[in-house]
């Protein structure tokens, strides 16, 4: 087995993920590109597990399992945030999110709560 083949595959997938995160405007598509990057890292971990003789056998595959669990947690919280954004602004375009001021609905709610 030539380890360079899966390594190069993983590097190209990671580049595609970076490109997708920077290029896409739809938040769901940004999350899909993040999944591509996470999978590239997983492929590197599994390939390193076969090529590098570590003190603990199969630690690379154990790490890949951990990364899969982290990705599942990330996608759950990320999609909850995206759906909340859609509920607030009726759009999931990341360019339209104002970073400096709260949208009107949030400001009104916060004002109510402080009374």
């Amino acid at each position, binding site marked *: 087995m030539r380890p360079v083949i899966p390594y190069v595959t993983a590097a190209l997938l990671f580049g595609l993920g970076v490109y997708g995160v920077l290029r896409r405007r739809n938040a769901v598509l940004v999350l899909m590109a993040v999944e591509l990057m996470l999978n590239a890292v997983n492929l590197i971990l599994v390939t390193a597990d076969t090529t590098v003789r570590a003190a603990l056998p199969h630690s690379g595959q154990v790490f890949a*399992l951990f990364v899969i669990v982290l990705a599942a947690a990330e996608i759950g919280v990320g999609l909850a945030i995206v759906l909340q954004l859609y509920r607030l602004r009726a759009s999931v375009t990341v360019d339209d999110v104002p970073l400096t001021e709260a949208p009107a609905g949030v400001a009104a709610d916060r004002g109510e709560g402080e009374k």
Partner: protein
Amino acid sequence: MTGADVLLLALGAVAVGAGALVVGTRHLVRAGLWLVVCLGALAGDYLVLSAELVAWVQVLIYVGAVVVLLLFAVMLTRAPIGPSDDLDRPGWPAALIGAGSGLGLAVLLVDAFRWSRVDLPAAGTAERLGEQVFRSWVLPFEVLSVLLLAALVGAVVLSRPDIGRPGGTPPGGPAGAVEPPRPVVAADEGGRA
């Protein structure tokens, strides 16, 4: 070139091609479906690399759960059927950075490994991996279970509009059922409705 190399090349080409379509297509739903192809090809890669358990977990969790969640999100945000023109921002910087990081990493890894050859180790079956997880990696495993719980609670809090609303009753819902924990949650989540 052995059979494993040919399989790895073919599956890697499928994965990279499907990944390019995920970040390139103008149909939202098709991006999710190409993601299935990409993740499935990666699961095949794991099988060739003798990581059996990781391959099946990949199929179960990624293809089974994550992609379904993403497709749900696509539908819940009322994605248009058919091509949409406003998915991308004009992206020379994105292409430059993406190609730079991908090709840079590829050059680095090619330079590190050349055309060397290794023998595949013993297959990572569920028995061997479970032995490792529950012997050497018990603490990270338990911490991950706490993290999953935290993520679950966080997702529930985020997606219920009545929890973050300080002092108010849920709009249209029965009041009083979650009265005791509300001040704590409201203090944490006060900035978000």
